[in-house]
């Protein structure tokens, strides 16, 4: 490949000679097309300036529409006009120089002296300095001529001592300025001369930049730029005629001003002090500056804001019966998006059938010779007959097509994944709720985008690299990110509980929903345990051992782990050869991880299928529901609660007294005040923890030891499906200490937090300890304190998301070019080394087990087992 490095871009001003040299043709008439609709020779639509008709060839380069880049034309202005964007540059020169001799109005010694000063200044500052020193000089030190004050009436009218200074006079003036003086003004004369700011020739842009549009009615409509150019040429001609006819000076000046107006608005129709030129309809014209400027301008709209074809966007809704790698595409979208398919000898008949079928199946057919036809009922038969190998058929989406699915903000690689299309009714895009996590999506109105890869390469790349099932393991920590959520966890828990048992009929029903067709041998007399049925969904030969969510709740319940405690046996899941031996399976990622690492993605997909279906069926069968009464704590816990609160109040009050009397021992490294506050907060937390533990134990025992447990919030919480022990504590335990800015609420009135407190009360309840819970309700004081904590939480989430979002963006942007090179070094885009080994240890978490190169325990176990055989 030929590569050239761009050294730089230089912006400058075109001289009239350059304008004439660049021009493919000189434009002489303001007309566009003749009465037969052909472009006029020497007119604004002269085909020398490029072609916009696909069948015509350019008269300058001989190329067709797509190849010809367009060519400039030129226009000779009868009288020079000032380029409004440069009038301030002219003003500077006129202020600084003499009209007679063109010299800067300073003595040579002064100029030499100033040169040393200027060397240290920027161009703008230098000019300012010259103008300041010369503007008021009423006499030229070089030719002794009198100098008069020059005034610029923005944007283009110059006056000298109240007399008009015409552009031609200005041009003569600045032509006189000698080179050495212009250099002081910062001009590089090889590139720019100030007299070019007064234009004698105008560039006429190529037709490709201002194409005419043929409306449906057959009427040609011209571009705004063409309209403006017509105005300029028309006035230019009228001015010429009047001058030739020897019209009075007044009329000539009026026309000259009009020409100036048109040229000014041609460049920028929003020039200050100039009324914008209007279209016949009264709409202001969009001239050159308007095309580039602002939100809808070329830069922000077309260059920075790229848009794509073959994409769709809609609200998303969940559909647990889709596979994780499917996306539900509504018919409306599927029938609009197309994907190209090449006709081969293997799919020729299939394609013919598809076209014949009618409807919206096929939109375009491109023959090998490049001829593209839109299919309609009129030409359908004909196209089918003509269809040959090598043709390209653009058909609408079908089930099984691969598409990219994306949700903004696209913060990491799993924000955009490849899915198979599944056409569904309705208007919303659907996805399996398990893939919400990588996208960070929910269904409160989120919208997502869908893109259809248009080439074989694109489709293959999407399938190999971006398919959902290839992205289950997170590259961050090597654990699965696409796992069962909420209902899946609760449902699996319900299925694998000790108490869950099914009759033969029920078991067959459950297995049918899982997609299992073989009934295993009954393991509980005539009945089937839930664990046995669940095992049927697991791949044969699967071995795993891990702790589930119950283990976490057990920790919170503060139940000692001794041999007699039967609860602990539920926390450890043991799976051998695809059979759950013990423990309760909730959707701990560990199980999924074991499957992903050891089996094909199809097997995982099948597992997810079984899980989604059985969970849904089982929860419907058994009925999981919650009611208020379950949050009414039982008498034994209520007693415990009262005791704990009494202790807290007592201990807290003692602490407060100690603090008030100055006898409090501070915590090392903290002041007495800090120590007191910290101790009070900790005390509040301790009390809640105590009650919380008792609540947790009660829920656990009920769920595990009751032969027919109620399927309520306890099930949700213990299984990890929804809610935490903390939520329980808030509802039926003790709310505990309210915290604002990681401490007790402070700052209020003098000597007390709120008016409900006694003065100087430092005790627990005055400082935001809430003894009530949501079930009993709070008293006004507690309620107010709770609101303070609530407000803090609300503010924090707002600030935290904003700040961390931007922080993450900056980090991601700074790291986005880093890559692992073939020698395992991490390098930047310019191949600088950042790490000599990826992650210092060369380990990629998603391809290792828990950071280790292999699961040695499991491998050894397998070896031993093999030996035994």
């Amino acid at each position, binding site marked *: 490949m030929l590569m050239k490095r761009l050294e730089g871009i230089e912006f400058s001003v075109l001289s009239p000679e350059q304008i004439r040299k660049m021009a493919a043709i000189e434009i002489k008439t303001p007309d566009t097309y003749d009465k037969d609709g052909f472009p006029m020779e020497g007119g604004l639509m002269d085909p020398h300036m490029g072609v916009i008709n696909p069948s015509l060839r350019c008269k300058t380069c001989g190329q067709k529409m797509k190849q010809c880049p367009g060519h400039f034309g030129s226009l000779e202005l009868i009288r020079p006009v000032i380029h409004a964007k440069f009038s301030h540059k002219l003003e500077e020169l006129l202020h600084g120089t003499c009209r007679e001799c063109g010299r800067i109005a300073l003595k040579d010694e002064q100029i030499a002296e100033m040169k040393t000063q200027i060397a240290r200044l920027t161009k703008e500052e230098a000019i300012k300095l010259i103008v300041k020193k010369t503007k008021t000089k009423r006499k030229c030190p070089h030719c002794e001529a009198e100098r008069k004050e020059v005034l610029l009436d923005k944007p283009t009218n110059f006056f000298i001592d109240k007399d008009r200074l015409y552009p031609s006079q200005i041009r003569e003036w600045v032509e006189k300025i000698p080179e050495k003086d212009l250099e002081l003004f910062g001009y590089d004369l090889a590139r720019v001369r100030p007299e070019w700011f007064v234009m004698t020739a105008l560039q006429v842009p190529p037709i490709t930049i201002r194409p005419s549009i043929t409306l449906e009615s057959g009427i040609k409509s011209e571009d705004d730029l063409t309209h403006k150019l017509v105005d300029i040429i028309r006035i230019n001609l009228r001015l010429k005629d009047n001058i030739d006819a020897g019209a009075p000076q007044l009329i000539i000046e009026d026309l000259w001003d009009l020409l100036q107006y048109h040229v000014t608005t041609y460049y920028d129709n929003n020039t200050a002090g100039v009324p914008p030129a209007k279209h016949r309809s009264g709409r202001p014209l969009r001239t050159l500056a308007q095309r580039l400027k602002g939100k809808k301008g070329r830069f922000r709209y077309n260059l920075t804001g790229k848009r794509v074809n073959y994409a769709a966007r809609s609200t998303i809704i969940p559909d647990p019966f889709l596979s994780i790698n499917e996306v539900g595409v509504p018919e409306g979208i599927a029938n609009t998006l197309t994907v190209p398919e090449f006709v081969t000898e293997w799919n020729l008949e299939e394609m013919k059938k598809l076209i014949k079928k009618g409807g919206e199946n096929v939109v375009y057919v491109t023959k090998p010779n490049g001829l593209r036809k839109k299919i309609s009922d009129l030409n359908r038969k004909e196209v089918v007959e003509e269809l040959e190998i090598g043709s390209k058929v653009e058909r609408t989406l079908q089930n099984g097509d691969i598409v990219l699915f994306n949700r903004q903000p696209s913060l990491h690689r799993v924000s955009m994944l490849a899915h198979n299309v599944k056409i569904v009714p309705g208007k919303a895009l659907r996805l399996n709720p398990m893939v919400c996590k990588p996208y960070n999506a929910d269904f409160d109105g989120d919208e997502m985008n869908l893109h259809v890869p248009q080439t074989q390469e694109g489709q293959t790349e999407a399938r190999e690299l971006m398919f959902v099932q290839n992205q289950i393991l997170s590259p961050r920590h090597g654990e699965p990110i696409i796992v069962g959520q909420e209902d899946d966890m609760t449902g699996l828990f319900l299925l694998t509980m000790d108490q869950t048992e099914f009759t033969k009929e029920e078991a067959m029903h459950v297995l049918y929903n899982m997609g299992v067709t073989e009934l295993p041998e009954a393991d509980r007399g005539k009945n089937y345990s839930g664990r046995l049925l669940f095992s049927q969904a697991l791949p044969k030969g699967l071995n795993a051992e891990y702790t589930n969510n119950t283990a976490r709740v057990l920790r919170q319940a503060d139940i000692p782990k001794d041999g007699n405690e039967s609860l602990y046996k539920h926390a450890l899941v043991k799976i051998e050869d695809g059979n759950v031996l013990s423990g309760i399976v909730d959707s701990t990622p560990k199980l999924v991880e074991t499957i992903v690492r050891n089996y094909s993605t199809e097997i995982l997909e099948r597992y997810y299928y079984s899980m989604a279906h059985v969970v849904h069926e089982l929860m419907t069968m058994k009925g999981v529901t919650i009611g208020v009464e379950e949050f009414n704590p039982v008498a034994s816990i209520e007693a415990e609660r009262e005791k704990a609160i009494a202790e807290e109040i007592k201990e807290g009050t003692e602490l407060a007294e100690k603090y008030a009397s100055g006898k409090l021992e501070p915590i090392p490294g903290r002041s007495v005040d800090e120590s007191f506050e910290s101790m009070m907060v900790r005390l509040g937390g301790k009390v809640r923890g105590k009650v919380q533990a008792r609540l947790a134990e009660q829920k656990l025992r009920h769920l595990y030891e009751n032969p027919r447990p109620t399927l309520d919030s306890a099930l949700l919480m213990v299984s990890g499906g929804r809610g935490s022990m903390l939520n329980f504590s808030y509802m039926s335990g003790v709310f505990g200490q309210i915290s604002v800015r990681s401490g007790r609420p402070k700052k209020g009135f003098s000597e007390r937090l709120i008016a409900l407190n006694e003065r100087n009360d430092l005790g627990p309840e005055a400082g935001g300890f809430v003894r009530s819970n949501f079930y009993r309700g709070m008293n006004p004081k507690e309620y107010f304190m709770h609101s303070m904590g609530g407000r803090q939480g609300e503010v924090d989430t707002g600030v935290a998301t904003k700040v961390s979002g931007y922080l993450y963006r900056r980090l991601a942007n700074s790291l986005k070019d880093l890559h692992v090179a073939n*020698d395992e*070094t991490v*390098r930047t885009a310019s*191949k*600088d*080394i*950042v790490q*000599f*080994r990826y*992650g*210092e*240890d060369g*380990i990629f978490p998603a391809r290792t087990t828990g*950071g280790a190169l292999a699961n040695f325990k499991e491998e050894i176990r397998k070896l031993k087992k093999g030996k035994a055989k």
Partner: protein
Amino acid sequence: MLKALSEHHLVPQHELLKKDEAKNLLAQFGLDVDKLPRISLEDPMCTELKAGIGDVIRIVRRSPVAGDTIYYRRVV
């Protein structure tokens, strides 16, 4: 300074590479010197090692995840 900087427990082990060692290293990674991470000539460790511009310093760090890891920096 009361104590050599290199003796501080938070400063990893720095070592100045000999010219031929540095050359071998670059050959091993197929590198130009300017692709190596940099260290300022004014860095206190450079002063202590009496390193000059263009020298390569080997640093052995104790990484929490990977044990001893070797890093190279070029003096600029």
